């Protein structure tokens, strides 16, 4: 008989994701990423390492890019969470960053894409006139194995420039 620790007992959690409340139950040890994917059905948030390096799981928590594999769901209660599924408009219009990634070929397999989209959304919303070097540095927190990054940087820069124009 294994001992049941409090971390294994599911508790009710309310997560506000993309403007909608999700009432779910999650064990205190459950990560935000797993909860979003499995309880909220939002599988656009991907898991590439589950140890905080790759950034595929990046979501916005009150506007800040965070790695949802490193947070527990219970820690995200009361915060505004935004995921890739919330980027397009209600009528389905793609977000300018989604458009730019498409136009600039900023994705190949697309596995890293939700993380990069959320990271760059967070970056451009908080620092709309971020310089080129700082932008590269900000984007260096996520990994992409397919593109070699250049087209991702170009995509994000184009949105920054269009907004500043």
């Amino acid at each position: 008989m294994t001992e049941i620790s409090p971390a294994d007992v599911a508790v009710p959690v309310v997560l506000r994701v993309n403007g909608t409340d999700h009432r779910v139950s999650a064990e205190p040890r459950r990560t935000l990423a797993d909860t979003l994917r499995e309880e909220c059905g939002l599988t656009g948030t991907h898991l590439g390492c589950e140890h905080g390096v790759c950034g595929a799981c990046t979501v916005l928590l009150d506007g800040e890019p965070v790695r949802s594999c490193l947070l527990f769901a219970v820690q995200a209660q009361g915060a505004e969470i935004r995921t890739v599924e919330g980027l397009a408009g209600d009528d389905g219009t793609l977000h300018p960053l989604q458009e730019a990634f498409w136009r600039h070929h900023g994705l190949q397999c697309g596995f890293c894409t939700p993380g990069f989209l959320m990271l760059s959304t967070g970056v451009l919303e908080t620092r709309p006139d971020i310089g080129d070097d700082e932008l590269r540095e900000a984007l260096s927190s996520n990994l992409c194995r397919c593109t070699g990054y250049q087209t991702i940087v170009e995509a994000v820069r184009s949105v920054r420039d269009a907004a500043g124009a």
Partner: protein
Amino acid sequence: MSWVGRSIRRVEDPTLLRGVGMFVGDIGGAAAVRFVRSPVASGLIGAVRGPAYTIEDLDADGVGNIEAVLHRPDYVRLAQPLLARERVRYVGEPVAVVVGDTAAEAEDLAEQVELDIEPGPAAVGIDGALAPGAPLVHPDESDSNVMVAGEMATPGLAEALDRAHAVVDLETVSGRQAALPLEARGSHAVTERFGGRTTLHASIQAPHMVRTVICDLLGMPEADLRVVAPDVGGAFGQKLPLAREDAIVVWLSRRLGRPVAWIEDRSENLMASWHSREQRYRLRGGFDAGAHLEALQADVVANVGAWPCYPITWGVEPLMALAELPGPYTPEHYGVRSRGVASHTCPMSPYRGVSRPAITLALERLMDIAAARLGIDPVEIRRRNLQSEFPHTSPTGLRHDEGTYREAMEMAVRHVDLGAFRSRQQTARAAGGSQPGIGICTFSERTGYGTPAFAARAMGVTPGYENVELSMDPSGYVTARIGASPHGQGLETALSQIVADEVGTDPGRVRVVASDTDRTPYGWGSFASRAMVLAGGATYLAAQQLATQLGSVAAEVLEAAADDIFLADGRATVAGTSVGVEIAELARIAHHHTQRLPDGAAPGLSAQAGYDPAGTFSNACHVAEVEVDPDTGGVSVRRFVVVEDAGRLINPMIADGQIRGGVAQGIANALLEEVVYDEDGNILTTSLMDYLPPTVAEIPDIEIMHLETLSDATVTGAKGLGEGGTIGAPAAVLNAVNDALAHLGVELNEMPATPERVREAVRTATGTPAG
């Protein structure tokens, strides 16, 4: 206007951008499978206790062994069980498997499993595995660790080396790498309660092949298994071979009658998925007084790990080196011994470029060293040695179709302005501190491997051809069902461009169906830079047939001669007139008013074509500019130029994306990534904290230029380029690092050129003690 040649946006993207793609881990609704893996590199299994399935359960069900075969006398044949039997041979080898309701429960169950393993000695690196008395990886099947050994020499090699004006000896080493797709592997199987048919979704590159081998292993008809590769988050070769885990997932779903899924975690992926690249080359090059490489002799050893991979086998790396080593050069005399040596380490599978990054490193270092020895410029020595008459037949009998080896190099060096660089370099040398260096790499990329190329390898299974089925439905949309299995390359978009041109429609009216054995013709999936050539060629041929069918329906409707009909912009028009009809209307007629079809015409609109060429060679020149800090050993890549000739580009944007991604992986190979084992075979790089893929900070913008040689080796003129980036970049970077430190007498021929290795090389060259 033609669609081919245009950088249209990819049809694949909107779903992925919205986060509604379906990767294996997104399917859900399944019990969680977890593997219990060996904690030691080598040992005898005593007992396995706990709530797990073992090889005994597989044996009881009559599950077979994997046999990856090459029909060669120098190849050791093995039967590989799906779970370790009696012995473990590498850290991470699956020994047992548990099933839990949730991933957390499966993890807990796995922890309860006790493995009694009596550890034994391990053979780890190349030297360890080749040493006399080395621990044997497969003692019952072989009395040495050499699992495959190819050898050849042209007559007169020794004499040619004897009479050479200059002989250059060189040893190059390529460290072990992991392909590291951002999505690790995974599989999900459901067996229908009624009828018992199983559907496997797996993150793989070759669904039809996987269906065949799993059905062979489990003794079931292929009709009873559907294999689907949903969205695949990168693969690069790591998802080409059969994963033992995937076969077990199918077995479990059938045995338990419940959906089960295995989602590999990153540490499993780094430890127990496939590795690649660990190779050592000893070259001897004999140059004549004109600096022409007359004779090339090589001894190649590839560490191939503990087990072969199916169906490629563990001959793939050493034997590719044997066959392709002369590369773009023209030595008249060539001799080689190439061995695959087993070790108590993770098995190897081909990773983008396979042996060619290491082959190219060896050859391109040879050229630079010879140039320095003979007192000529690295550009000049290549000018004198690159192929320039076509077709060129290599000493191993490979036929190189036309290429632009020299032109690509000249274009690249003009673009970087070598003269200006050299004067900057002079200034920096005088000033001390960080040193700039420039490195050139020219290479050929053999692509479009069809059956003839694979048949030459004498594999137990001969991959090759691709089939495409094309149909136009009554709405006028075209569906292309392909045997290839794209996973991020943009093949759907490129094929839709080919179809659109041939049948006179818009790519938006073409749907490509791939990666599902129920919905596609048998094919070999996507690997080895072959999909654009093979699936593209088959699509082109099928589309021509479809166009002929449309033309004959149009001829009947328009009362014109079929030869006078041309298809464009959604209409069939009689040449020289404005008389025409919408293609969509022809599609209706072909399905719904077949009484109007020409006599004897089959109803509907559909075509099928296969394509199976002998293969072709793309070529490219890469130039890297680096800056090296001799004190810290740090290297940064400042500039990277690619001149690529991959024949006709179907979609230049997609082609450039393939090059950029490949170059980034190549830079990583040259400077950053290395799988490391300690001498007992414990793997030290099992997280992304220890295994270091590049971020945007390490990858410069890549300047790309194209040449387009239209060879008749392929029907579309496209040559394929999926691997070129990874093939050329490592050597370009290593040459640049050596160039940067040339004034110190440094010679560094091992990659990755980590700061430690660079510093070590500087210390060796300058005689300064460690400090």
